[in-house]
């Protein structure tokens, strides 16, 4: 009997390893020959730990499992069946390009990776050459998935054209935004896709060396990537492209690309002034391509399917699919890859099922700790870079955090400032000092000081315009969106104190 069981960190956090042990022990007891394949996650976190069993050649999902379900699962009498995995509405409504293999295959099996289309893109890239790759990428309209949404082809072309004796490809796997876990899921569930994407980048940009800079908070992903790199090197797959894994040390700001480069060089992770652009003067002073995990991991799908086909998905200038992460207080949390353009409210209510607590939604924060809070009144906003910008927010790394009506928006605004104060690299004053003042000012508002609200607005203005990077520059988004959309709470804080 063959059972696929997720070993994604979210599944393990919910007890997948205990389920695995119970299955193995129970199989011995029942005299069943069990082939247990540990996979990445299919992304339906509310069903984790989730196992799959083949019925008439189709994988059926079972979950959320507890060790006590092992016997029934093996006997075919488990009552936690969810039907065919790919027919579960949350899954069926997705378009999986970047995450096509995640949860399906054994993440460390090169044979399965190949059997599911792996390495076809790298082979094609070797045929069409750097020019061909850059042209497909241009056609695809792929934009950076790390937050800023910068067109990938422009960055790649800049690095490709730069003259230097040495260039680098750096994968930004620092994924610090609350509400996001797509990078983690991909690295744990389909690491060869990222490796393949980086090898293609090396080929297109003329770089022989790559680094994956991963946050230390992801021990599972670190273990899988380490093994995947060993296998890839052993199999001679990288063909002269040398790829190294580097682990961060718990600093949110090291997700910012210039700070990341300093960290990679062994320095304090302070932000560098731009220009020079990392594409021209990046790691160790050499031209460097810095891209997010999802950007690089989408490249194989772009190359295999063709840039034009990729651009056929999405809306307006937001092309392709986005792995959206639905998190927080939500019934069906997980990873939902879909073409850009679905209205926010549909993602929250219909796909996510609204708050798990059963209470109404009060707000959702989109784009991590530097993203705005959206009230239900803005739920018709289509999920695209442009529409979110126009609505006073950003999609960032596409995390959606759902809050029910018990959320305290003054406290959320305060937290945004507190977080900025904790994580500021200290290089510029608006961020370093502004965040501390921000916490104090919000405390005054909460204590009923009416004069403090305009001060907060001024402060946000200064941080926005004067900060060296988006840490200080975007912290005003969550703060001011809370003030703008929930003025009564800031008002009430005053009245309550009067």
């Amino acid at each position, binding site marked *: 009997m063959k059972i696929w069981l997720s070993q994604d960190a*979210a599944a393990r956090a919910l007890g997948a390893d205990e389920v695995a042990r119970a299955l193995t022990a129970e199989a011995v007891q029942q005299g069943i020959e069990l082939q247990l394949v540990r996979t990445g996650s299919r992304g339906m976190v509310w069903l984790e730990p989730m196992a799959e069993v083949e019925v008439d050649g189709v994988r059926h999902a079972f979950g959320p499992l507890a060790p006590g379900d092992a016997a029934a699962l093996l006997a075919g009498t488990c009552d936690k069946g969810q039907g065919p995995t790919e027919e579960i509405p949350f899954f069926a409504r997705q378009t999986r390009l970047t995450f096509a293999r995640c949860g399906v295959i054994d993440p460390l099996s090169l044979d399965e990776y190949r059997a599911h289309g792996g390495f076809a893109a790298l082979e094609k890239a070797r045929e069409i050459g750097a020019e061909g790759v850059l042209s497909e990428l241009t056609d695809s309209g792929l934009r950076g998935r790390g937050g800023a949404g910068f067109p990938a082809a422009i960055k790649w072309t800049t690095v490709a054209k730069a003259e230097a004796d040495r260039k680098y490809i750096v994968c930004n796997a620092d994924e610090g935004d609350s509400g996001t876990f797509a990078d983690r899921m991909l690295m744990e569930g389909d690491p060869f896709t990222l490796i393949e994407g980086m090898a293609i980048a090396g080929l297109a940009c003329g770089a022989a060396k790559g680094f994956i800079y991963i946050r230390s908070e992801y*021990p599972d992903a670190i273990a899988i990537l380490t093994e995947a790199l060993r296998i890839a090197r052993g199999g001679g797959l990288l063909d002269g492209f040398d790829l190294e894994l580097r682990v961060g040390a718990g600093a949110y700001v090291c997700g910012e690309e210039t700070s990341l480069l300093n960290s990679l060089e062994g320095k304090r992770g302070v932000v560098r002034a731009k220009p020079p652009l990392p594409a021209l003067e990046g790691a160790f002073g050499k031209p460097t391509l810095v891209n997010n995990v999802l950007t690089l991991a989408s490249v194989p799908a772009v190359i295999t399917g063709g840039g034009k086909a990729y651009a056929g998905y999405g809306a307006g200038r937001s092309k392709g699919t986005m792995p959206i992460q639905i*998190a927080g207080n939500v019934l069906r949390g997980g990873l939902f890859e879909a073409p850009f353009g679905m209205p926010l409210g549909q993602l929250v209510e219909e796909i996510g099922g609204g708050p798990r607590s059963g209470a109404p939604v009060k707000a959702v924060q989109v784009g991590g700790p530097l993203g705005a809070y959206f009230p239900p009144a803005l739920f018709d906003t289509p999920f695209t870079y442009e529409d979110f910008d126009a609505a006073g927010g950003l999609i960032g790394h596409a995390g959606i*955090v759902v809050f029910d009506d018990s959320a305290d928006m003054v406290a959320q605004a305060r937290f945004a400032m507190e*977080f900025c104060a904790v994580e500021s690299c200290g290089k510029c004053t608006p961020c370093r000092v502004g965040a501390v003042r921000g916490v104090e000012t919000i405390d005054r508002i909460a204590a009923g000081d009416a004069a403090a609200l305009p001060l907060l607005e001024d402060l946000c203005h200064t941080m926005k315009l004067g900060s060296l990077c988006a840490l200080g520059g975007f912290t005003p988004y969550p703060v001011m969106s809370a003030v703008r959309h929930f003025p009564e709470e800031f008002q009430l804080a005053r009245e309550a104190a009067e």
Partner: protein
Amino acid sequence: MTDQITPDGLDERLSEILAAHQGLEGPLLPILHAVQAEWGHVPQASVPLIAKALNLSRAEVHGVVSFYHDFREAPVGTHVLRLCRAEACQAQGGAGIAELVKDRLGVDWHETTANGRVTLEPVYCLGLCACGPAAMIDETVCGGLTRERTLALLEELGA
């Protein structure tokens, strides 16, 4: 500054660590991680030796150690409990779990229990945002923390 005791065999083991990382580009972070994996913190006595090997000043190495939340300059408890304080976990009742843990352990953030078993650290997102509140005990992830589950975990840690 806390009193520092130089761990036994520091020189010898550190030389091995330094030698193992010599060929890397930008070796300081990998070295510091290896040092902390060995001794649980970055012993003060290691700083001048690392500085010398990398041709840096002590101040530069110290500056790096102190910049990153991960690197510790003093020993910690037997176990490190990292509790997520970020937004998605807040939305799922993370603050209540944090209060419970602090109360039960009798410590605040960054402190170690009186019996030396557990150090409590805040962490800002573990990528378990769809199954919070989340925590990490040493390198083991835990999600969907309820009051009961949290108390059971603390019990197991011997806190």
